[in-house]
């Protein structure tokens, strides 16, 4: 009964979405305030209906209603409650419903906080958002009904269970994060389309659209990092990035979203790059849609692909073509009138941001090309090829080198026309530190051509890190003003400046983690009997034996490993090899000891014939830096989001203090 109510809510939502897509748009065209005004209440109703549908599905999972096909196929009574709930989005239909829920959530948010938007822009934006929701509701209702009952009305005793690898706290929250990122870019898209229809893009538009893009980018950053972290500890061999098609599907929009964040700054501050920014907003969301298409249609083989279904593939392809084709057509017709804006020399802050866009867009297009190439080659009858990690590494790294080099310089350039020599002369400290780090890394790791790459990578990261600090130091007049003065300035820096600094430092930190881990990772695999020990990276793992244990829905072999250094115990680790009951599948639960800089990673495997166990030990140097860096980037995004100018944009959030600050301050 509740499942049917959920289904009914979705059908009702479809009609509300169609209404919201049509009426405010027509109203904006006619200048009819009442028709435009419909958008806000409609977005609230839409969100409520989809939330009810989502709760109905969640209810079916929580009470294990196996007469619902989706629950039967993806749940089991023995599962812990958390995984019953996360099972809702651990499958195609449920995750699609989550997609729509987040879409409507963003629509609602614009309706709520968009009070200061011009009514026609708000009406059109919400109308476009509703149009996207309409497309996805049609998709879910016609091809992927999550509430479908088992056809013959039978009631199975139990479900088939959720894939054990998904029964992990990291992965319970990874998909919603990632979706919030993907879907969040729909807001930038809707704003872009609305602006094209209005025929006007200005600084105010950029300021309105930027927080939404930031929110999406933050979610996507955390989502990708969470997925990487999960892969690292769950898959049992210490890898954290694989260039798998589905990883790429999230990384491609991240790269283009990063470009969008930067080009929107030029629109906001200098009224330039308008058409390009609009195009980026369209492309970024299109790439999110493309990712969905790739994962769900089966055109690309990926280990993660949801069961491929040609009907769904065709439907998504149609949805993709209508959405993207329609918006590109609108762009082709309307964008030429957007031209104009502030002039700037190639060497200027704007010029730097433009180069950033060139590199980010190229990186995004490159990853896209590599991901799609097997499909392209197959479609053109060029044969079956594999485009694996070595390809991506060999093309992506050369793009990141100039990116990081320029990232240190760009923020030092003035708007409009900059003095490159002056900027470079401020970076001599960074150059010195960078060369020092290069030399030390090269010598400490033993020299040789093989170490050159790692040393170069570390030097580059040091360049970016120091260069970013130099820029911050310049802002607060470090060493040129009394220290107290510098400290005061530091505190009073706009939060968007903090955001940029944190995010750029984060990139450097991620680079340290990536380069160092690839270069210095060690691994040993062996069969061990209890009492034996092995050395890795100056530490000793002693195997104290293994025993069978019983979990709520699995059995496991649990090993006991003592990690020691110079005879002193550092930690005791308990890796497990689990075998789940339903579906009957094994998983590896690695045990990791981290000292904050490096990880020691232990895995236990099957018993061997000679009475021992297969064990694997990994020394994972600087891997935590990946997570620190990603965290810094995400926090940087949050800091930027908290910037005063975004808050001032929304009157309902304005309080006296902020209002007082909003008066023009005298030039400092």
């Amino acid at each position, binding site marked *: 009964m509740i499942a049917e109510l959920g289904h009914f809510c979705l059908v009702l939502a479809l009609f509300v979405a169609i209404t919201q897509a049509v009426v405010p748009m027509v109203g904006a065209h006619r200048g009819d305030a009442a028709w435009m005004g419909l958008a806000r209440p409609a977005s609230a109703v839409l969100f409520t209906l989809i939330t009810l549908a989502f709760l109905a599905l969640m209810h079916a999972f929580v009470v294990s209603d196996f007469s619902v096909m989706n629950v039967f196929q993806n749940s089991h009574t023995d599962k812990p409650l958390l995984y019953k709930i996360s099972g809702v989005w651990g499958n195609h239909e449920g995750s699609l419903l989550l997609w729509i829920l987040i879409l409507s959530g963003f629509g609602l948010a614009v309706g709520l906080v968009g009070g200061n938007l011009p009514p026609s822009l708000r009406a059109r934006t919400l109308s476009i958002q509703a149009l996207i929701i309409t497309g996805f509701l049609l998709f879910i209702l016609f091809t992927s009904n999550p509430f479908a009952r088992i056809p013959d009305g039978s009631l199975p005793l139990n479900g088939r269970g959720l894939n054990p690898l998904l029964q992990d706290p990291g992965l319970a929250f990874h998909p919603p994060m990632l979706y919030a990122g993907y879907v969040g870019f729909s807001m930038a898209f809707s704003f872009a389309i609305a602006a094209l229809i209005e025929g006007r893009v200005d600084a105010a538009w950029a300021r309105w659209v930027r927080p939404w893009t930031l929110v999406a980018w933050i979610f996507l950053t955390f989502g990708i990092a969470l997925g990487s972290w999960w892969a690292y500890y769950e898959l049992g061999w210490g890898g954290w990035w694989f260039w798998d098609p589905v990883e790429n599907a999230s990384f491609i929009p991240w790269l283009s979203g990063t470009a969008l964040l930067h080009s929107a700054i030029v629109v906001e501050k200098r*009224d330039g790059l308008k058409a390009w920014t609009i195009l980026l907003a369209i492309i970024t969301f299109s790439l999110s849609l493309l990712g969905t298409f790739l994962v769900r249609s089966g*055109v690309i083989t990926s280990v993660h692909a949801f069961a491929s279904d040609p009907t769904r593939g*065709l439907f998504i*392809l149609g949805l993709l*073509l209508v959405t*993207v084709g329609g918006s*590109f057509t609108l762009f*082709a017709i309307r964008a*030429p009138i957007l031209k104009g804006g502030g002039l700037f020399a190639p060497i200027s802050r704007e010029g730097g941001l433009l180069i950033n866009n060139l590199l980010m867009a190229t990186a995004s297009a490159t990853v896209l090309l590599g991901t799609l190439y097997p499909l392209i080659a197959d*479609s053109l009858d060029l044969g079956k090829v594999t485009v694996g990690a070595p390809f991506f590494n060999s093309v992506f790294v050369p793009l990141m080198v100039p990116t990081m080099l320029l990232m240190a310089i760009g923020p030092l350039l003035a708007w409009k026309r900059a003095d490159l020599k002056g900027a470079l002369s401020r970076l001599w400290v960074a150059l010195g530190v960078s060369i020092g780090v290069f030399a030390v890394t090269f010598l400490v790791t033993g020299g040789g051509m093989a170490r050159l790459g790692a040393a170069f990578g570390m030097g580059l990261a040091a360049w970016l890190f120091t260069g970013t600090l130099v820029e911050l130091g310049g802002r607060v007049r470090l060493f040129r003003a009394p220290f107290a003065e510098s400290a005061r300035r530091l505190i009073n820096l706009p939060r968007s400046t903090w955001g940029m600094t944190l995010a750029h430092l984060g990139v450097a930190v991620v680079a340290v983690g990536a380069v160092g881990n690839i270069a210095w990772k060690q691994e040993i695999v062996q069969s061990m009997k209890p009492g034996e020990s092995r050395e890795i990276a100056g530490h000793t793992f002693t195997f104290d034996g293994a025993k069978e244990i019983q979990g709520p829905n699995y059995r496991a072999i649990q090993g006991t490993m003592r990690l020691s250094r110079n005879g002193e115990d550092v930690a005791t680790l308990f890796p497990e090899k689990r075998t789940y009951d339903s579906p009957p599948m094994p998983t590896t639960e690695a045990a990791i000891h981290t000292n904050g800089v490096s990880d020691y990673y232990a895995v236990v495997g099957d018993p061997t014939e000679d009475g021992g166990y297969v064990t694997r030990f990994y020394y994972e140097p600087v891997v935590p830096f990946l997570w620190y860096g990603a965290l810094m980037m995400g926090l940087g995004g949050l800091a930027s989001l908290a910037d005063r100018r975004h808050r001032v944009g929304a009157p309902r959030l304005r309080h006296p203090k902020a209002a007082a600050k909003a008066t023009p301050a005298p030039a400092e």
Partner: protein
Amino acid sequence: MDTTETQDGPTPESSDGLPHTHVPQANRRWFYFLPLVVLAVLAVLFTVGLSNDPRILPSELINRPLPEFSLEALPNRGRPLTSEDVKGDVTLINIFGSWCVACLQEHPVLRAIAQEGFVKIHGVDWREKDPRNGLAWLRKHGDPYDRIGLDPDSKLAIDLGVTGAPETFVVDAGGVVRYKHIGPITPQAWAEKLKPLITDLRKGTP
């Protein structure tokens, strides 16, 4: 600091001191259609891509002689299988295993082909943990094979470029591989593809 420019905000055009003439952009307008063109190309590729199955891998062996091999027989069942046994007439070599779910699905079709007596089917029992499992499986579900060879550690499978079971190779009288069928043979695939192919191959050989 290093700049004295005062321009800021969204309407800089008037402050640049340049005339307000609108230069036609017609010569660069095509640029705005570029995204649409890229999309159109991708759309065609995707539509073709949807009808291709990315998991089907064409065989490198087609029109090349079968590699030489000599496999041990399934214990307590007939003779072993070598590359010489395949020559003389068109034959099928079927990769199977008692662990393979899809093979069971294919099995009735193979039995029907064997009963028809149209072509010999040799089996390669691939990655059988214990040969007794293979024998028990054949006892239970019927045995359509002429000879069966054991391939416990994929020696032949790798030489044949096998990616999964079941797979079936059509080998002509001269021992040259002519076709590879991936996945279970369906009655339709047998009637429309394999049987006519075997007939043609027989006509072609002296």
